[in-house]
């Protein structure tokens, strides 16, 4: 089992893969790092050189976007619809770092304010912004796993800051994943045996900003609920990530059959 670690998406990333050739394993790790960095750069909310930044700071409301951007946005709009807006890249992007004038901005913080037709992205206004924060890292994990599978790897783990995908086994056993206690980072509340699927956890306890002594979670929820953390297993990391985020915003959402809740902390 070869292990590679690197930093991307402002988090630690880890690959573990079974290979009989160290050179092949290193080449695959380099390829995955290249794509992770490319995605991080292209879809950064803050990087002035990213395609996303250019779109968010547009001077016209109809723009030509890259094929990959169009595909990502298609995915985002799909998830916005099936989660009844609980997962919404426009809400995340438009309300990001906004702590006042919510009522004025909220009508523009919706995927309903944009549409994608081929490579043409059209906004209904100049205020709506996009944040792919809840999508791109998960997309990168799935893409990494695809790269490994394309190369014939049958046992591997991809872990980008807790967004995890696995195939095959870890030295003959199912992959063993510990879900951290949000109240005690030194303890796991559960150990999940994972096989050919992905696991993502969303919560308010780790990623937040503190402004004037008050905590603001990285996940925006307009209606408060008691859910502190939720972990989801799904066939793809995008699915697991999106649904864990959406459920944190709205725990009453009805889940598709292929999405499973494996842990909840109230």
């Amino acid at each position, binding site marked *: 089992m070869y292990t590679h670690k690197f930093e991307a998406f402002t988090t630690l990333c880890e690959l573990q893969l079974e290979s009989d050739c160290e050179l*092949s394993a290193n*080449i695959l790790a380099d390829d995955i790092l290249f794509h992770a960095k490319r995605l991080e750069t292209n879809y950064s909310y803050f990087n002035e050189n990213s395609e996303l930044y250019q779109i968010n700071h547009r001077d016209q409301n109809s723009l030509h976007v890259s094929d990959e951007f169009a595909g990502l946005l298609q995915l985002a709009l799909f998830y916005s619809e099936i989660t009844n807006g609980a997962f919404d890249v426009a809400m995340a992007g438009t309300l990001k770092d906004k702590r006042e004038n919510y009522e004025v901005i909220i009508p523009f913080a919706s995927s309903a304010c944009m549409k994608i037709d081929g490579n043409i992205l059209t906004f209904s206004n100049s205020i709506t912004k996009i944040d792919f924060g809840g999508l791109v890292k998960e997309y990168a994990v799935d*893409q990494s796993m695809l790269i490994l599978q394309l190369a014939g790897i049958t046992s591997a783990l991809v*872990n980008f800051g807790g967004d995890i995908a696995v195939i095959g086994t870890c030295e003959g056993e199912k992959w063993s*994943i510990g879900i951290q206690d949000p109240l005690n980072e030194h303890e796991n509340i559960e150990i*999940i045996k994972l096989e*050919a699927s992905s696991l993502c956890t969303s919560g308010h306890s780790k990623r937040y900003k503190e402004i004037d002594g008050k905590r603001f979670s990285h996940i925006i929820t307009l209606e408060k609920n008691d859910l502190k953390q939720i972990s989801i297993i799904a066939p793809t990391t995008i699915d697991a990530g999106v649904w864990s985020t959406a459920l944190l915003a709205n725990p009453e959402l009805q889940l598709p059959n292929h999405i499973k809740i*494996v842990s909840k902390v109230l």
Partner: protein
Amino acid sequence: MTINNTTQASYTRVNTQSQNTSSANTQQVATTRDTASFSEAAKQLAQEHVHSQSGASGTWSQSPAQSTQQNTQASTTDLQSLLMKSILSAYSNSGSQNSKSMNLTA
């Protein structure tokens, strides 16, 4: 060995008695990747794109730089297409009531 799944930016690897941990098998068939069809599609793509430059079989024989430079454009599009197919397949197979919303083009 247990990998930690956390919501935070940093994480630690911990050693636990993983063989003895309670493991009511939460995994169900529906939640797993469709590895059979997925691998088949991946194999086909690999033949078309990934190995086409090298002439070798079974391994990626190019240097990382060559590999990424020559294949990035095609493989990025193909990877996205494969991913979307995989996602759509999961929703189709689960009999999702949201099928009317599935307007993704893989």
